[in-house]
């Protein structure tokens, strides 16, 4: 008995100390400096981050979020200087500039001329001649679908989503801005001119979609739903849903309906209160460089078009096909930007969205 207990104590002590030793050794990347970035999930791919970490002997801490509102909420819950790099929706950059969050970028050090012209977005990203953020990735919130189960021709008309043709076979991406934008486009409105007066009609349409929808989900639930056959149509989907899955699920496709679609674009900037602005700027430079762009375009969370046209040289043909590299000219023409509501309209849209979820 006695020895059994001693043995037990010993085993326990050994297990615990080895555990603690392991824990202590764990944060192996004992890099000298750290960079804190607030990002969408595509930036968390080690294949994207590790080359930068190695080159600058730095540890990049990444916090992912979905939706500018969440990002601003996170910033609000932090202390000044906590954050260095900010990846934010292009249309929301003015909000960030208004809130005095961003620092000007050295425009001459960035490959601005290589950015697709539609993505330069001077009106949003620049103010008083200073550049505050640079576009890095873009794509579309339209309709993804399973072409073995759904007639691709049907998908050309967005109104099919609120008829009951595909009742119970639809999933909706749970992010209010693109989906509200899409519906607005479907209703023939301009996303850039939305006001509170447009909301009732949008609400009515959204509720019709909800009646047809099986679920409303974030990136993974909606991806899971369409990949597992839970649903056949994903409203708000696009290449970011299907491109990464193309190898395993060739039957998944996406389309820009005749009414058009919503184009999203991410941009990247440096926080004004950052204590490591130089390093942060280096990170921005890396992300918009052709190599960084190619890795970002095909990162694990979701694929989408790089903003830098030169990234094409770094991508394989198969990757480019999945991204529809060659169709971009036509697509860009038929897509509108995300809505960029002011704070009041934004709150109204979020309430609308909560009601939509609860409908």
């Amino acid at each position: 008995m006695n020895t059994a207990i001693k043995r037990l104590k010993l085993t326990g002590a050994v297990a615990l100390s080895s555990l603690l030793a392991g824990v202590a050794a764990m944060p192996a990347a004992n890099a000298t400096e750290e960079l804190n970035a607030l990002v969408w999930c595509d930036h968390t791919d080690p294949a994207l981050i590790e080359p930068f970490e190695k080159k600058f002997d730095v540890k990049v801490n990444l916090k992912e979020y979905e939706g500018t509102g969440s990002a601003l909420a996170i910033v609000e819950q932090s202390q000044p200087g906590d954050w260095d790099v900010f990846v934010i929706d292009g249309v929301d950059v003015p909000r960030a500039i208004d809130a005095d969050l961003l620092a000007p970028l050295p425009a001459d050090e960035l490959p601005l001329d290589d950015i697709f012209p539609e993505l330069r977005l001077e009106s949003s990203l620049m103010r008083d001649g200073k550049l505050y953020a640079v576009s890095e990735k873009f794509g579309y919130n339209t309709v993804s679908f399973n072409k073995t189960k759904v007639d691709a021709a049907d998908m050309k008309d967005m109104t099919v989503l609120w008829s009951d043709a595909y009742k119970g076979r639809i999933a909706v991406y749970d992010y209010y801005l693109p989906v509200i934008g899409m519906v607005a486009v479907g209703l023939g409105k301009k996303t850039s001119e939305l006001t509170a007066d447009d909301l009732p009609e949008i609400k009515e349409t959204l509720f019709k979609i909800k009646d047809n929808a099986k679920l409303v989900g974030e990136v993974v639930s909606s991806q899971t739903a369409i990949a597992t056959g839970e649903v056949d149509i994903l409203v708000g989907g696009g290449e970011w849903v299907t491109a990464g899955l193309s190898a395993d699920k060739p039957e998944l496709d996406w389309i820009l309906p005749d009414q058009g679609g919503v184009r999203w674009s991410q941009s990247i900037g440096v926080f004004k209160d950052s204590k490591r602005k130089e390093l942060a700027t280096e990170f921005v430079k890396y992300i918009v460089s052709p190599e960084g762009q190619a890795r970002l375009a095909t990162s694990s969370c979701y694929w989408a078009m790089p903003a830098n046209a030169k990234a094409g040289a770094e991508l394989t043909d198969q990757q480019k096909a999945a991204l529809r590299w060659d169709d971009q000219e036509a697509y860009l023409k038929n897509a509108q930007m995300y809505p960029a509501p002011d704070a009041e309209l934004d709150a109204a849209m979020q309430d609308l969205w909560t009601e939509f979820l609860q409908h």
Partner: protein
Amino acid sequence: MTMRGTSWRTAASALYAVLVYGFIFLPVVVLVLFSFQDGRFPIPPFEGFSLRWYEAVLADSRLMEALANSIVVAVGSSLVAVLLGFLAAYGLARFALPAKGVQRALLTAPLTVSYLIIGMGLLITFNFIGFPKSLLAAGIGHVVINLPLCFAIIYSQMGDHQANIEKAARDLGASEWQVITLVTAPMLWPALFAAFFLSMTFSWDEFIISFLLTRFDVTLPVEIWSLLRSGLNPKTNAVGSLVFGISAVLVVVLELVVLRKGRRA
């Protein structure tokens, strides 16, 4: 009761038990099975056996870091919770203090409040006083939820018999400190261990408080949550199966070694 009646009842009981066990283990079996899926989707059909998702998990430095963070928080917060719970239980069980009922109610009150609300309260408060989101903040939250549990478990084991044993130690010349370290704590070892173990389990699996209160140094459940939101693949199954495997072995070993012994005692 006839023999036939008895065996019919036994068969019905056995069937019921098998069904409930099936229900309980269904998600676990599916989880583990599809962690070996040789394809991108953890759903039928099973395409073949592969360990690639386990490799992916072990190669994922963020997951491994989160695992380490979880261990630190679970061990650390449980130690604090057990220590505070033990001291409070000792104080309340052994001394004449005013308003004992109120004190006990206060100490156990967090049991009746949802983790979400506790986490949110801490988030807002820390935000106001400028205490940064961190592993430490999450650890503090975990102590809040585990302290009542530890207190209740230990307090329930401090009866009159135990009081007499402490009295005997004092009578034989032990100082107050010696009574606690040489008699009370070792005597209550099973209760202390149970409290620690339960506390570890809860902390290990706790999501919402860690989610609200950490920034980069997230715990494993929060990292798994991020993993879930960033794409569908059997990696989630693999990490879930790993966690389950390790914990299950630990639990069974504890059951066989420690609790068996405790029962004999």
